[in-house]
């Protein structure tokens, strides 16, 4: 007979731990699915919230990329003393165009006129639409294009022709070129409707008339109110500093220089900030899922008293019984976590596909969600596991 002077409990290898931990799951697949479902819903909600925000943000950034960040706008500011609107010099567009690095420049001039669907509509109902004179290059500088019809050109720019921004067209109820709108005291023919212009929302809300036509027909004085320019990417900051002194060397403070892409960037940042409320809902679902796992584990321990007793009789230590049930709980919630990540990613994919957005699930959200399930699995499994390990083997083996 072999008499070992000291008895030492053998350690279970990782594979054996997985083996005993998954035994209970394999024998009860339906229960596994149901209790993992709670976790899965929680994780899926969180992944979906984060993923949809990230996708929207990616879409904005992609848009920003397409529009470029090299466009600047110089506008007439308020006069420092008079409070009256200061006008930019007549040749401001030309001066800006000659700045080193500037590739294109265009201008708009505000007209104190209203545009209406017909002369019968009262003058006060402007619908918030501004009437502006526009130079021909404006659309190129904004990288916009007409959704229908044409842009202002040398030919139609002389006649009572008007191009509508897409918001203006919508408000006027005009869906295609060829219709007429009432400006000042005559009808203008709509020759084009523009696509959305994310960099210049003020143009979206405008009715644009050719520079010459505005001067001849609407009493435009030829002073631009805004100059749009695009430079090379490398010279943007330099140009930004030169814009005001170039336009108004004596009173550069009267010229306000703006960077519309920075507003879009800020918008992208807010889109990326997901709704805390929805995330909280996901967290609650996850918590409920964790309670479900704990419940399942307690039932599992009760049902498997015989197995626990058997394992103790085969030489399992209390620690090994604990490890077994914590592993089982971890696997249960881990499965739920994996399913949740998959489900959430699929939800984001579906949302992105319907909205034409890029599909983005930040890796940290998937990793974080999964880590959360593992933490929940440990917590949910600990109490049942301790109970299992404290079961008296004799009671556990008792028949019945």
């Amino acid at each position, binding site marked *: 007979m072999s008499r070992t002077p000291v008895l030492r409990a053998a350690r279970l290898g990782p594979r054996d731990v997985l083996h005993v931990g998954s035994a209970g799951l394999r024998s009860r697949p339906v229960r596994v699915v149901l209790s993992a479902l709670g976790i899965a819903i929680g994780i899926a909600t969180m992944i979906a919230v984060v993923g949809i925000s990230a996708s929207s943000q990616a879409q904005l950034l992609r848009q920003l990329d397409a529009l470029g960040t090299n466009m600047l706008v110089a506008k007439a500011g308020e006069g420092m003393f008079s409070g009256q609107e200061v006008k930019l010099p007549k040749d401001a567009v030309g001066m800006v165009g000659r700045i080193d690095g500037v590739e294109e420049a265009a201008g708009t001039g505000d007209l104190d006129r209203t545009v209406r669907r017909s002369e019968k509509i009262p003058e006060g109902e402007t619908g918030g639409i501004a009437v502006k004179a526009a130079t021909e290059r404006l659309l190129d500088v904004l990288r916009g294009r007409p959704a229908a019809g044409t842009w202002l050109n040398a030919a139609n720019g002389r006649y009572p022709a008007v191009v509508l921004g897409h918001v203006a067209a919508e408000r006027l109820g005009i869906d295609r070129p060829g219709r007429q709108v009432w400006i000042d005291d005559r009808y203008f023919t709509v020759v084009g409707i523009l696509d959305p212009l994310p960099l210049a929302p003020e143009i979206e809300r405008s009715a644009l008339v050719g520079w010459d036509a505005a001067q001849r027909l609407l009493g435009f004085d030829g002073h631009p109110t805004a100059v749009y320019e695009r430079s090379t990417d490398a010279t943007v900051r330099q140009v930004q500093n030169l814009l005001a002194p170039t336009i108004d060397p004596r009173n550069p403070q009267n010229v306000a220089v703006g960077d519309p892409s920075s507003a879009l960037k800020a918008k992208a940042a807010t889109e990326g900030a997901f709704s805390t409320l929805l995330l909280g809902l996901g967290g609650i679902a996850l918590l409920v899922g964790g309670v479900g796992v704990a419940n399942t584990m307690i039932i599992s321990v009760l049902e498997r008293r015989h197995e626990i007793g058997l394992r103790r009789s*085969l030489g399992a230590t209390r620690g090994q019984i604990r490890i077994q049930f914590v592993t089982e709980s971890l696997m249960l919630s881990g499965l739920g976590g994996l399913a949740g990540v998959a489900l959430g990613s699929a939800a984001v994919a579906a949302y992105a596909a319907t909205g034409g957005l890029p599909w983005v699930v930040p890796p940290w959200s998937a990793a974080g969600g999964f880590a959360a399930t593992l933490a929940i699995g440990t917590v949910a499994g600990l109490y049942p596991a301790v109970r299992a390990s404290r079961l008296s083997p004799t009671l556990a083996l008792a*028949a019945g």
Partner: protein
Amino acid sequence: MTAVVELTGVVKEYPGGVRALDGVDLTIGEGELLGIVGPSGSGKSTLLHVVGTLDRPTGGSVRIAGHDVAALTDRRLSALRARHIGFVFQAFHLVPGVAAVDNVAEGLLYSGLPRARRRGMAADALARVGLADRLRHRPHELSGGQRQRVAIARAVVGEPALLLADEPTGALDSASGEAVMDLLHTLNAEGATIAVITHDTEIAGRLPRQVRIRDGRVVADTARGKVAA
């Protein structure tokens, strides 16, 4: 003869004052095959638990395979069970849906042997109990007698110093029960020390030594006086 089990004045009292064991002296030598017999309530199950180190006595001393149980922590006691004691239960306690060979290999799970070795030994143990052709069968595909033989294979796969069989034929028809008892005789002939706990005097009567228990005391031991402990 070396003693595998040495019980001296063992008392087991449950809270509430029930004395399940009341001063039991019992020595089991290596290579013995004995029956522990008694009616239900006699304390024989408690005796099984104490001998199997699943329960600690409230008094007296228990030495199993030379180890004083009272001096061992739960971890060391578990190791003692893993190395030196094999259990066979009336209700088999096989893992459902798992092949016979894997059920038997489970008996070595806590022994520290590598996985492949465990499976090889499990196949050998199944061959010893006459189930070499049933390795891949799952419990529900086996008869009751075959299931109990799988359970016996699981108990002996680690070559324990002591095999404790608790009513091993209790859930079997007489033919299967007969086969199981024959198997225990064969294993004993091959050198295993086996204690069979039963209420069936007929089964016990065919074992070389009988220990009768009543009210927590040994009332008769056919070996008493013959074995010098």
